[in-house]
């Protein structure tokens, strides 16, 4: 699918590791201000794709534009600075285990802004409250938090620098149904709250049910190729046998 002024645009992107082709001539756009999910089986190339979008990996051939910027034109330092346009919620939240919840969220603010301690404290409180963390959990270490709470704190940390693109790596993997629903609601709420900033959400997942509930667009990646990319309602009715099989799971 092609969009006008997309948040992310891949053109003929191929990635090879030795003789193995992980991404095979990928060309697609991700619309601004949308929730787009990239579905696929394990080993389909989803995580590799995400690393390309972040500029952590470079394609063997092809170009990747993010927010109108060709990543291949940025040097290492520019690329690092450019990554501040991204927020990312990792599969297991990836909170710094020696920091409290509060310190985790404050971390990007202390690293990249000139805010005073009071201002950072206020912002951290707002962020943690906005994702549903109660005051008594602010001082807890990640090991003292439940899986769902860790995800909330991870989301608050990812949102701290007001990213333009929010990436979710398998956000519901390994969670119970209630926490899964909570995380899905959180993703939708976050997208809604940041709509005026045109924040784009990209989810990497193999959770079909959650994908169909929360996404605007769904792309299906198989063996490094996008085999289907449609608005969610059309995706549900896709005639592609592979998608049909996946939807039955």
């Amino acid at each position, binding site marked *: 699918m092609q969009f006008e002024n997309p948040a992310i645009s891949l053109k003929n992107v191929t990635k090879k590791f030795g003789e193995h082709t992980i991404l095979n001539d990928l060309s697609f756009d991700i619309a601004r201000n949308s929730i787009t999910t990239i579905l696929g089986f394990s080993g389909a190339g989803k995580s590799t794709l995400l690393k390309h979008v972040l500029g*952590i990996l470079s394609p063997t051939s092809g170009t990747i534009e993010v927010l109108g910027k060709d990543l291949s034109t940025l040097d290492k330092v520019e690329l*690092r600075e450019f*990554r*501040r346009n991204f927020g990312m919620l990792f599969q*297991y939240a*990836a*909170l710094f285990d020696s920091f409290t919840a509060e310190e985790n969220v404050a*971390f990007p603010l202390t*690293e*990249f802004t000139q805010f005073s301690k009071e201002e950072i404290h206020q912002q951290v409180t707002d962020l943690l409250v906005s994702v549903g963390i109660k005051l008594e959990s602010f001082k807890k270490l990640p090991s003292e938090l439940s899986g769902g709470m860790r995800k909330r704190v991870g989301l608050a940390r990812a949102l701290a620098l007001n990213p333009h693109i929010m990436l979710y790596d398998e956000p519901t993997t390994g969670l119970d149904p209630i926490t899964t629903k909570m995380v899905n609601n959180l993703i939708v709420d976050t997208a809604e709250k940041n709509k005026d900033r045109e924040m784009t959400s990209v989810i990497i997942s193999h959770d079909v049910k959650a994908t169909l509930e929360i996404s605007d667009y769904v792309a299906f990646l198989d063996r490094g190729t996008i085999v289907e990319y449609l608005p969610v309602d059309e995706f549900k009715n896709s005639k592609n046998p592979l998608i049909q099989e996946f939807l039955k799971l």
Partner: protein
Amino acid sequence: MDLDYFKNFFIKQVEDFGRSIIESIAGLGNMFLFTARFFYWSVRPPFRFKLLFEQLFFIGNKSIAIITLSGMFTGMVMATQTYFGFKLINVDSLVGVIVALGMAKELAPVLTGLIVAGRAGSAMAAQIGSMKVTEQIDALEVMGINSIQYLAVPRIIASTLALPMLSVVFLFVGNLGSYWVGTKSLLIDEAIFFSKLSEFMNVEDLFQGIIKAFVFGFVISIIGTYFGFQVEKGAVGVGRGTNLAVIWGMISVLILDYFLTIYLVRIL
């Protein structure tokens, strides 16, 4: 049939040996690249002094108890052993200075290096390794923070600065132990003990130990952080990385000690 079996067995052994050599060379090359990255990132802002002081506290202050204990008993044992050897040829008055020289040039830096490799080198590998397998390092990179600059640089600088200081503590306490055993237990005359010390001991002897400790501190932390970043495959990988960091840290101290000794005795 049997001949084929032995032929295949032999070929496999040769292949495994060749592979291990290639992997070792590749590993060494990677470690040099890692060291180059450390130098590149250590001179670039932001300079995180808070992290540096935290690491200095961990590697330096928190090692003082074990260094003091080891230093004290090493000095006492050295004095006792030297005394009974020297007594045979009636040079027991040299016990203090021989122990002091041995400690200053060899035992203080080497034993401090081995202790720090076991304590702090393993901790570096374990901390960084567990951060890697739980995607905390990826989180840093996604935020635009260089993980080598954030995690390795403070640890390596702190270790390089802390080891000479710990070595001096080891030396001081070791000599106290030697003095105490020598004069109070073995009844060497106190005045002779000190006069021999001032007669045969030079500042260069102290420098030799300090330079060695400085190099050991750098190498141990490069190895510890490098193996931390190399960790893969969960908890098993963290254990393996920690193990390799300790083994190679200790071996490096002992090998480097020989080459540094050859070099330093010529220039000092």
